[in-house]
C-alpha cells in the first residue's frame, strides 16, 4: 500500500526551542493513523505544518505523491483540538462560508450540507446561531465542516472530546465510514482505548522526536515481554514453584477465574511457550494460559517514562 502522506525529516524551531526534531512519518493511504504523544510533544506543531498554517524550518512533506503546496489545503480536512465557530453567525451560513473557503462552489456546498445534516439528523439547525447550541451540538457542526469537501486526508485532533457516549459512537461510525470511502485519517488523541479500537498504524512523538512508528500489531510485537498469564490447579505448590523458578521469572498475577487456581505471571525469556507448558502440565491442571500483550496505553507510558531525561 502506498503512502498518502510522507513527512521527511521535518524540523521546526521557535526561537531556541526545538518543537520538531527531524521527524519523519509515513501515513499509508486509506488507513487510520494514530498520532500519539504527551502534552507538548510537538503533535500540534506537526499538524499545523501539514495544514500549512506554519512552515517547517527544514524537511519536506509529500502529499499524494506531490510536494505539499497551497492548493493542497482543499484536499485536507482539519478538526483542531481547540474548537470554535463564529458564535453570532447562523449555522447554515457559517458552514457554507467555511466550505466555500475549501474551494467548494456554493451549490455543491449546499448539497453536501443537506446530505450531512440529514445524515446526522440536525436539519433543524440551519437557522440557529452557534451561541444557541450546546457544546456537543457545536462539535457536530464542526465535524461536518471538516468533512464537507470530501478531503483525502482528514486530521482529527481529539475528535471525541465533548461528546456523550451516544454521539461519540455516531462520530466513530462516521469516521469508519469515511475510511471505507477511501479517506486517510490522522487521529490525534490521548484516549488510548479509541486508538486500540480504530487505528491500524500509530506513531509516538515525545519531546520533539518520533520514538515509535508502525502498524499497531508490529509495535506490540516489538514491545512484547514474552510473559504469560497462567492459571494452574496443583496439589504440590512448592514443587511447581521450584520447577518453574529454575527456568523462568515468576510473579503473582491476578485475573478473573472460576477455579481456585494458582495465578502467576511467568516471563519465559528466550524459551518457547511449549517449554513452559511442559513444565506446567507435569505438575498440575492448566486452566488458563494467555500471552500478555502490551496495550497501547502500556507502550505509551513505558516509552514516555523511559525517555524522561
Amino acid at each position, binding site marked *: 500500500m502506498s503512502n498518502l502522506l510522507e513527512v521527511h525529516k521535518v524540523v521546526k524551531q521557535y*526561537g531556541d526551542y526545538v518543537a520538531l526534531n527531524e521527524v519523519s512519518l509515513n501515513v499509508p493511504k486509506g488507513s487510520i493513523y494514530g498520532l500519539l504523544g504527551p502534552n507538548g510533544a510537538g503533535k500540534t506543531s506537526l499538524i499545523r505544518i501539514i495544514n500549512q498554517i506554519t512552515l517547517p524550518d527544514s524537511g519536506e512533506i509529500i502529499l499524494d505523491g506531490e510536494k505539499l503546496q497551497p492548493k493542497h*489545503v482543499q484536499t485536507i480536512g*482539519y478538526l483542531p483540538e*481547540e474548537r470554535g465557530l463564529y458564535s453570532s453567525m447562523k449555522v447554515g451560513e457559517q458552514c457554507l*462560508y*467555511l466550505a466555500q473557503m475549501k474551494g467548494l462552489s456554493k451549490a455543491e456546498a449546499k448539497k453536501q450540507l443537506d446530505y450531512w445534516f440529514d445524515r446526522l439528523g440536525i436539519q433543524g439547525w440551519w437557522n440557529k446561531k452557534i451561541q444557541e447550541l450546546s457544546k456537543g451540538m457545536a462539535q457536530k457542526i464542526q465535524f461536518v*465542516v471538516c468533512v464537507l469537501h470530501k478531503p483525502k486526508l482528514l486530521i482529527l485532533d481529539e475528535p471525541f472530546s465533548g461528546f456523550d457516549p451516544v454521539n461519540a459512537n455516531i462520530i466513530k461510525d462516521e469516521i469508519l465510514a469515511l475510511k471505507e470511502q477511501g479517506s486517510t485519517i490522522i487521529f490525534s488523541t490521548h484516549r488510548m482505548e479509541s486508538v486500540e479500537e480504530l487505528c491500524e498504524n500509530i506513531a509516538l512523538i515525545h519531546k520533539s522526536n518520533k520514538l515509535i512508528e508502525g502498524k499497531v500489531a508490529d509495535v506490540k510485537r516489538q514491545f512484547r515481554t514474552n510473559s504469560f498469564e497462567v492459571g494452574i490447579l496443583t496439589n504440590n505448590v512448592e514443587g511447581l514453584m521450584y520447577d518453574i523458578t529454575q527456568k523462568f521469572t515468576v510473579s503473582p498475577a491476578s485475573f478473573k477465574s472460576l477455579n481456585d487456581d494458582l495465578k502467576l505471571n511467568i516471563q519465559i525469556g528466550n524459551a518457547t511457550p511449549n517449554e513452559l507448558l511442559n513444565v506446567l502440565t507435569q505438575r498440575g491442571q492448566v486452566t488458563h494460559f494467555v500471552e500478555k500483550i502490551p496495550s497501547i496505553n502500556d507502550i505509551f507510558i513505558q516509552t514516555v517514562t523511559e525517555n524522561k531525561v
Partner: protein
Amino acid sequence: MSIISLIIKREFIAKVRNKSFVVMTFLSPLLFVAIAVFIGYLSTMKAETKRIAIHDETGLFAADFLKENKKSAEFKYLNLSEIDVKALKDSITKENFNGLIVIPKTNDAKDLESKIEFISNNSPSISFVENTQDIIASKITKLNLQSAKLDTLAIQKAQSKVNIHLVKASGEESLKGLNEVKIGIGGAFGYLIMMFIIIYGNMVMRSVIEEKTNRIIEIIISSVKPFQLMIGKIVGTSLAGILQFTIWAIIGLSLMFTASVFFDVNVGTTAKIPPVLMQSAQHDFSGIIQMGLREAWNLPIASILIGFVIYFIGGYFLYSSFYAAIGAAVDNQTDSQQFLLPILMPLILSVYIGFFTVVNDPHGTVAVVFSMIPLTSPIVMLMRIPFGVPWWQIAISVSLLFATFFLVVWFAAKIYRIGILMYGKKPTWKELYKWLKY
C-alpha cells in the same frame, strides 16, 4: 469566487447586519439634526428681561440708556435718579432689580471714568459690563468733543468704514466672516474621519480578537493565508464604513438641498451675494442661514467628498492594519489598551492641529507639513481642502499615505501571522519586535 472576496463579503455582511450599524447609520443623522435644531431653538429663545435701575446724578447718561430699551428686550433700564442712592441700594432685592448703575455727580467728566459703580446681588455678565462701559464711554467722548469745541458732525463724516472683499485668484468671490462655514465643514469632515478610523479600526480589532478567542482562526487559516484573511477583514469592514458614509452624504446633501429650496437659494449658481443680503444678514437670522447655504454650495463639494473617501480609505487602511496587528497580538480587549495609545496619539494630534493651526492659517508651514505626514494627513489635509489646496500637494500627500500603508500592512501581516496562533499571555513590545523577524 476568490477567497479574498469571500472573506470581504462575510466581513461586510457581518458588519452591516449588526444592529448597532443600522442604528448608527440612520439614527445619528437624525440625532445630529435634532441637536442642531435644539441648539438653534435655545439660542433664539428670549432671555428673561433684566431690570436695571439707573441713578444718574449728572443727568447726562440716563437718556442714552433708555434708548437701549428700544433696541433689545434683554434689559429694561429704569431712570430712578430722583430716588436716594441708599434707598435704591436697599430696595434692590425688594423691588426685584437685577442691578443698579450709580453715576455720581462730578465736576470733571474725567472723574467719571473711574467712579461709576454697578451694584447687584449676582455678578453681571461680561458682555453686559462691556456694553454699559461702551454706552458711557461714547457719551463721555461726545461730551469731551463738545467741550473741546469740535464739530462732532464733521468728525462723524470723517470716520470711515472699510469693507474688504475676499476674492480668490480663481475668480470666485468668497464672503468675509463666512470662513466659519469652511472651518465648520472642514472640521466636521476631519472629525468624522477620526471617528471613522477609531470606530472601524476598533471593529477590525474586535473581529480579529473574536476569531482568536473563538478559536475558529485555526480552521480558517488552514484554508487561507493569514495575509488574505487580514486584508479581507480590513477591506470588508471599510466597505461597510463607506456605505455608512454614503448614506450620510445622501441624507446630508438632500437636507442641504431642501433647506436651500426652503430659504430660496439658487443651487448651483455662484452668483455674487447681493449687498442687500449682506446687510440684512447682519441682523436677520434667516439671512445668515441663506448666506451660509450659499457659501456651502459654493464650496468644492465634489472634491471634499472625493477627498473624504480617498483619505478615509488611505487613513483607515493604515490605521486598521495597526488595529489588526494589535488584535492578533492580544487575547482580549483590555490587554489592547497599552498598544492603542500610540495609535490614538497622532489622531488626536491631527485634530488639534486641524482646529488650531489650519483654522488660523490653512496654508502655513505647520498645516502643510502635517497634511503630508501620513499618520496625520487624512485629518489635516481634509480640513484644508475646503480652503483650496493645490493639486500637487494632495498628490504628494496621497501617495505618501498609500506608500506608508503598504509598508505598515507588510509589518502588520507579520505580527498578525504569528499573533493569531499565540494564546495565553500578553506580549511585550520586545516580543512584537521579535515576531517581525520570524
